[in-house]
């Protein structure tokens, strides 16, 4: 996988399907399951993760020859935590967003996606590739979050509220509340994961590989 010819476009695209962090690599699930109750939260969470992932990927790729092997994990964590703190401080100036996401932003530090990409990819890739990888994986994460949250919010509450405005209203009273609660996260995730497996199994074998 590592030795295949890498194109920038391919690095970006792989994050959506073939190495989708949530559905294929199955990392970073905790935040995804917890936060996908509202579409609005997912937009901001996704942007925050894309920013942190891309920045830390680029920095780690830049200093990959400077980092000694024995202390690489602490260095990754320092880099990641710094970017998360930057996001945290910046979001504090937008109280409406911070009030909702406050608890989840610091937890991006321990989001496995970011450390996994740092250790498994950025530490041995060119800067440009690391940048595209961060962007692609980040967008793959965000797109799954959006799909999950649209499904859960729409059918769990009967409507979607974006920035205090009702975007879609189904006008139904009896909604399956379970979707908005914790079991709903697992059910939605399992359905999506199965859908992706089915889609990939249908394609010709070997047609596309990470």
């Amino acid at each position: 996988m590592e030795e295949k010819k890498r194109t920038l476009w391919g690095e970006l695209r792989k994050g959506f399907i073939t190495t989708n962090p949530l559905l294929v690599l199955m990392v970073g699930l905790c935040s995804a399951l917890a936060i996908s109750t509202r579409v609005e939260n997912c937009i901001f969470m996704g942007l925050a993760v894309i920013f942190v992932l891309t920045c830390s990927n680029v920095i780690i790729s830049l200093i990959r020859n400077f980092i000694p092997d024995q202390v690489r994990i602490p260095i990754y964590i320092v880099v990641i935590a710094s970017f998360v703190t930057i996001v945290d401080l910046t979001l504090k100036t937008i109280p409406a967003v911070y009030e909702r996401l406050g608890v989840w932003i610091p937890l991006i530090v321990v989001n496995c996606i970011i450390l996994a990409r740092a250790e498994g990819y950025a530490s041995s890739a060119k800067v440009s590739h690391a940048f595209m990888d961060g962007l692609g994986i980040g967008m793959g994460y965000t797109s799954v979050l959006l799909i999950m949250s649209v499904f859960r919010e729409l059918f769990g509450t009967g409507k979607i509220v974006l920035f205090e405005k009702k975007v879609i209203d189904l006008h139904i009273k009896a909604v399956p509340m379970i979707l908005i609660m914790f079991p709903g996260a697992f059910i939605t995730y399992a359905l999506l994961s199965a859908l992706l497996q089915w889609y990939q199994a249908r394609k010709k074998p070997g047609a596309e590989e990470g």
Partner: protein
Amino acid sequence: MMRHVLNLGLRLFLVCAVAAAGLGFTYTVVKDRIAQEEAKRRARAAEAVLSSIQAQPRESEELTALLQPAFPDLLTVFEGLDEAGRRAGYAFVLKSKGYNFITMAVGVDMEGKVTGIKAVSNEETPGLGAVALDSEEYLSNFQGKGPEPLTLKVDVDAWTGATFTSKGITNGVNKALEMWRKLQEGGED
């Protein structure tokens, strides 16, 4: 061997130093904005807790300075002024400990009755403790209580699933009542 360890330490130190410098810079850029937003939130909360007695909040550095030595958890005090400009109550913005830290505003009128409670910010668990803090219905249970210290489960019920948060709110209210008492004894009015 020694050299090797020093080399590792030095590189780790360099990375940390650069990270610290970057964060320090970010902090100086956003520091004032964060303080402004926090002050706005406190003022809004003070207004909300004093609205039941139709009083307008005015931040009082004097009272804050008077109380803070005895109450380190106090952040700031607002005086509640009625239409004629007379003092009708106080709003104490203070920190309390629930499951995590809670910053809340507690309004107290001149008779020592609680006029309202509002959370300014909190680190309680979303869906558990935070629900109790966001629930106006629950917080209204505290209204009209005092000036005697409150006991949870006697004067006010605890919120199911948020015992720690309920304790934190009750402790915060009791602290505010204590501050009110101190202001009365201190010859203020």
